[in-house]
């Protein structure tokens, strides 16, 4: 049998009943549009959450110089610190799961610009503080390794500090501030980071090279903490183990002795957020999946009704020589064409509606080509799957009974 003829027959038949064709398509249109929109919104939201988590520095580990206690550790109580810059160097060199390491020294003090002064925290860190905290500058640039080597008196201001010293909206790069009577040149302003999990304002900070703060402001040979980042979020616990082992060795702790330091990670936060995103994606995917299945059942429903309604037509076709396989092919092509056309219209509608939602609600959306391909393949598969049974039914009709059908 000539397949082109069957295609012609199918299209004539679809064109003959445009309303029925459209109604059949409607299920798929809505299903595909829902899938596209759900995935666009879901992926958009999931991306936004991921970005926020990345902003926290999920890969980050913090080593405090105390044994952990029931009441938790206290960053400020640094007098007996035994963490040193060389601990940081050793971690950098000997822990393969660790990517960046910086010792941190911390001074709480007044900073003065002209007549304005502000009490804040001055952090001393290596330039890789940017990568570890995932905290870029909004303007200007970070200090460099040579600034670190030379203990240069340069600094970066957090948003809150910059606003309080120089007023909102000004870019004080190149200006000088006084910290404990030493002039520091401002070379950058950090991007806003907002509050941390404890509700502290993270932008209330000045960051300067570690050597500068340690030697010129704190006057200590120790570090208040060591910040590190693991090579990936999945390597955080490995990195934690490696650091713990290394520091135990370096601090010459016997095997029974408790740690004299604490390694904290943000894994808990990360895994909770990760689970939330996964749940959300799953939820959206199931809603989308259900709408596609409903669309498919719609197709099957109308195809089945159409087989019954067209029983006589099928009888006529068989009487003039259509074989069962011709009728099967015709009905399958009809179902497939409807789901293809429905798929394309659904994709257009889904893209438009998710863009609409995004514009109205200011939701981030991501329309990935994969989701379009996926929705289209689904539509086609549903066309075949749900078109098969009615087509089979039509093909197996007995010509005489079909002709006698009223």
């Amino acid at each position, binding site marked *: 049998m000539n397949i082109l003829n069957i295609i012609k027959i199918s299209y004539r038949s679809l064109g003959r009943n445009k309303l029925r064709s459209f109604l059949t398509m409607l299920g798929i249109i809505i299903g595909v549009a829902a899938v596209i929109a759900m995935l666009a919104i879901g992926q958009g939201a999931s991306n936004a959450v991921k970005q926020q988590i990345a902003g926290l520095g999920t890969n980050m580990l913090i080593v405090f110089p105390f044994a952990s206690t029931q009441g938790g550790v206290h960053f400020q109580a640094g007098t007996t610190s035994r963490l040193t810059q060389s601990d940081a160097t050793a971690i950098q060199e000997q822990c393969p799961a660790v990517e960046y390491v910086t010792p941190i020294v911390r001074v709480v003090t007044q900073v003065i610009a002209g007549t304005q002064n502000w009490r804040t925290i001055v952090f001393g860190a290596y330039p890789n503080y940017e990568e570890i905290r995932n905290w870029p500058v909004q303007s200007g640039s970070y200090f460099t390794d040579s600034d670190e080597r030379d203990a240069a008196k340069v600094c970066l201001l957090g948003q809150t500090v910059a606003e309080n010293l120089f007023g909102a909206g000004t870019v004080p790069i190149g200006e000088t501030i006084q910290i404990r009577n030493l002039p520091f040149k401002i070379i950058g302003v950090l991007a806003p980071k907002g509050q941390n999990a404890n509700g502290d304002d993270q932008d209330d900070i000045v960051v300067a090279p570690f050597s500068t703060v340690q030697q010129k402001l704190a006057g200590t040979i120790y570090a208040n903490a060591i910040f590190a980042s693991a090579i990936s979020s999945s390597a955080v616990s490995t990195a934690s183990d490696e650091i713990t082992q290394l520091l135990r060795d370096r601090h010459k702790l016997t095997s029974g002795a408790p740690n004299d330091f604490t390694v904290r990670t943000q894994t808990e936060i990360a895994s909770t957020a990760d689970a939330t995103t996964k749940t959300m994606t799953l939820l959206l995917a199931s809603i989308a999946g259900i709408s596609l299945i409903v669309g498919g059942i719609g197709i099957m429903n109308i195809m089945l009704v159409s087989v019954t309604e067209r029983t006589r037509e099928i009888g006529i076709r068989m009487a003039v020589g259509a074989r069962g396989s011709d009728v099967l092919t015709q009905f399958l092509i009809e179902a497939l064409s409807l789901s293809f056309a429905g798929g394309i219209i659904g994709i257009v509608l889904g893209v438009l509606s998710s863009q609409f939602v995004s514009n109205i609600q200011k939701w981030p959306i991501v329309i990935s080509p994969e989701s379009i391909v996926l929705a289209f393949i689904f539509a086609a598969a549903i066309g075949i799957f749900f078109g098969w049974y009615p087509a089979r039914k039509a093909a197996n009709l007995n010509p*005489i009974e079909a002709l006698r059908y009223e």
Partner: protein
Amino acid sequence: MADPIISVKHLVKIYKMGDFEVHALRGISLEINPREFVAIMGASGSGKSTFMNIVGCLDIPTSGEYLLDGIDISKMDRDELARLRNKKLGFVFQSFNLLSRTTALENVELPLLYSNSRSAAQRREKAMEALNAVGLADRAGHYSNQLSGGQQQRVAIARSLVNDPVVILADEPTGNLDTRTSVEVMEIFQKLNERGITVVLVTHELDIARFAGKNVLFKDGKISRIAMVEDRKIASEELPKIPVLEDEMES
């Protein structure tokens, strides 16, 4: 004489309905030769349609032998029967059985779409030729619901002859038509028969049966009588005698 086009021997058809059996055909033996025009008659329920369906390869007999154009169809499967219906048979039904929302031309083309040998242009030409033969070439583009009953039946006849069948089978083709239109349809059958096409038709009207060359009477699933028609009527001569009704849709 040439070999018969249709040759049935001891044809039996039993419909089983649960444990109840209907003996629709109880041993029919009949030969129909090329160029014959046979009218099958009989009371309602005598098995005429059952016989036509089997001869038309739409159904298979419970037992008995059937040779169509020398081919034994008893061993054929569904697909082969479909091919035979397409190539060798033309069917005309009482209720016209045209596709709705479809033009006359597309209806006539239908059998050609299920036999792959022709191009679209050739199909069109063939279909127009057939419509011409039934005098409806000017209605090619009309939809079936825009045609009168007589015109619809003529389209159905055009469809039945478009694939050059060896025999046209018509089961009560005039059953839904008024007298004049019935005679017009018989005129077409007679014309086709003169062109050499074998015609077998079922009717329970004596008047209609007299347009045929031979009458076969069915009774309770058996043939009770076979007779040549003596004073055969010629449709084209009868037509002028029938008054044209005012409200008839024919043009």
